[in-house]
């Protein structure tokens, strides 16, 4: 046996090399003092998102105050009386974080429940916060109440497996590994990864796109789209200010790459002698036919990812507003079949844009243009 260890390889040949510096961006919430400063800036690109974030925070504080008052007033009557009075209960997340202790046993030991104080374990707290941020985007922007739109509890397990460089959705919960120490760091680090996994749950409860071939690549792409939106929303970024990277804090310093995927420029996220080159295509011309990875679901997702990026930047402003709304409407419209291909999905987005913003409007035109740019002809929806 050889001691030379080159553990990863890429099924696709390496192309011309363009080394990229490791660009670590921490997706923490921007501190209020900085937001306040930015909101008084003369540059609309800076002050608009800052003001919007401050406004949202203020709104949430008000909402929390109302809830507290409501809860206090309701204690005498009890929760049942409150419900029968026709007052809808406050929509809040119900998060529970479990620790697998490097085993592969699920769910693991319960370590933090909703409303409990942070614990000493940063992975647990990041998972808790990331689930909260994802819940918040779905509720505040799309009026979706958790994964199933009926308040489903959000369960996550951290510290799964030994040297486990991955995260997945098992149909009921999000599962995060600590990284393998060679290529990947802790999978709870990027908030877009947490949003990506939770969105697999949303897709399962809505369009339920089959996880194979083009429908699988769409399933993957929706998770990248909403994962990225969660990050952009937290940072208050406009489409042209966002980095559109997926998993930009996952790689160790040994890897020549900025992230796992780039929605802005699929195929350019990494180029490494061990990992190979990012194999994602941006257009149908470079669609990858493979039996591996369920028919390349994490590869060909680059095409719908890039279509969304094109739409969001064409429309401008915050990507979660019009572009995100069109994608969300498409996902939840009921018009997609589980085996929808790119053309069917594209057709459904055109219909969704017309449905929400008007037939022949700027939004519908922008949707048509972005699919055209990636070489997908929308089917009649």
């Amino acid at each position, binding site marked *: *046996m050889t001691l030379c260890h080159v553990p990863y390889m890429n099924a696709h040949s390496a192309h011309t090399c363009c080394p990229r510096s490791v660009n670590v961006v921490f997706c923490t919430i921007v501190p209020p003092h900085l937001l306040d400063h930015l909101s008084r800036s003369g540059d609309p690109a800076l002050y608009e998102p800052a003001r919007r974030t401050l406004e949202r925070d203020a709104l949430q504080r008000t909402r929390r105050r109302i809830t507290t008052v409501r809860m206090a007033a309701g204690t005498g009557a009890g929760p049942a009386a409150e419900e029968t009075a026709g007052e809808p209960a406050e929509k809040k997340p119900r998060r529970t974080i479990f620790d697998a202790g490097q085993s592969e046993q699920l769910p693991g030991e319960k370590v933090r429940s909703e409303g409990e104080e942070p614990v000493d374990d940063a992975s647990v707290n990041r998972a808790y916060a990331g689930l909260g941020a994802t819940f918040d985007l779905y509720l505040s922007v799309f009026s979706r109440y958790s994964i199933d739109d009926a308040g489903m509890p959000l369960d996550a397990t951290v510290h799964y497996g030994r040297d486990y460089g*991955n995260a*997945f*959705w098992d*149909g009921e919960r999000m599962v995060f590994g600590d990284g393998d120490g060679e290529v990947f760091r802790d999978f709870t680090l990027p908030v877009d990864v947490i949003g990506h996994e939770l969105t697999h749950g949303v897709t399962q409860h809505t369009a339920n796109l089959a996880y194979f071939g083009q429908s699988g690549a769409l399933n993957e792409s929706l998770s990248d789209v909403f994962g990225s939106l969660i990050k952009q929303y937290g940072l208050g970024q406009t489409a042209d200010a966002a980095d559109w990277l997926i*998993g930009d804090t996952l790689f160790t310093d040994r890897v020549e790459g900025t992230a796992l995927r780039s929605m802005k420029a699929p195929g350019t996220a990494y180029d490494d002698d061990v990992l190979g080159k990012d194999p994602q295509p941006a257009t149908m011309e470079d669609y990858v036919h493979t039996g591996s990875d369920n028919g390349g679901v994490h590869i060909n997702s680059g095409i719908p990812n890039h279509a969304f990026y094109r739409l969001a930047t064409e429309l401008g402003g915050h990507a979660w507003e019009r572009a995100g709304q069109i994608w969300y409407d498409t996902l939840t419209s009921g018009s997609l079949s589980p085996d929808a291909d790119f053309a069917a999905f594209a057709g459904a987005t055109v219909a969704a844009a017309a449905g929400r913003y008007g037939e022949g409007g700027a939004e519908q035109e922008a949707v048509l243009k972005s699919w055209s740019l990636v070489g997908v002809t929308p089917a009649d929806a």
Partner: protein
Amino acid sequence: MRITVTRTGGFGGLTRRATLRTDGRPDAAELAALARSALAEGRAEPSTGVPDGFHYEIETDDGTTYCADPRLTEAQSALIGKVFREGGTDRG
């Protein structure tokens, strides 16, 4: 005996492959037993698995089997871990 594990899928969609030769190893018999169990407990065809879950193909002299996270048996998990930690990487 030669044991090759190919892992595909996962959040990154990256492929990793390693081969372990058991000949001359003190734990050869133990590895052979693990491989037999892993094969007996696996599937003849790859499954769709769960979103972002890893898929594994285990090839030994006795045949090829498929399994996927998070439903590995103890033998499959132990064998895959051993091959990735101690095996040599080949490029297919």
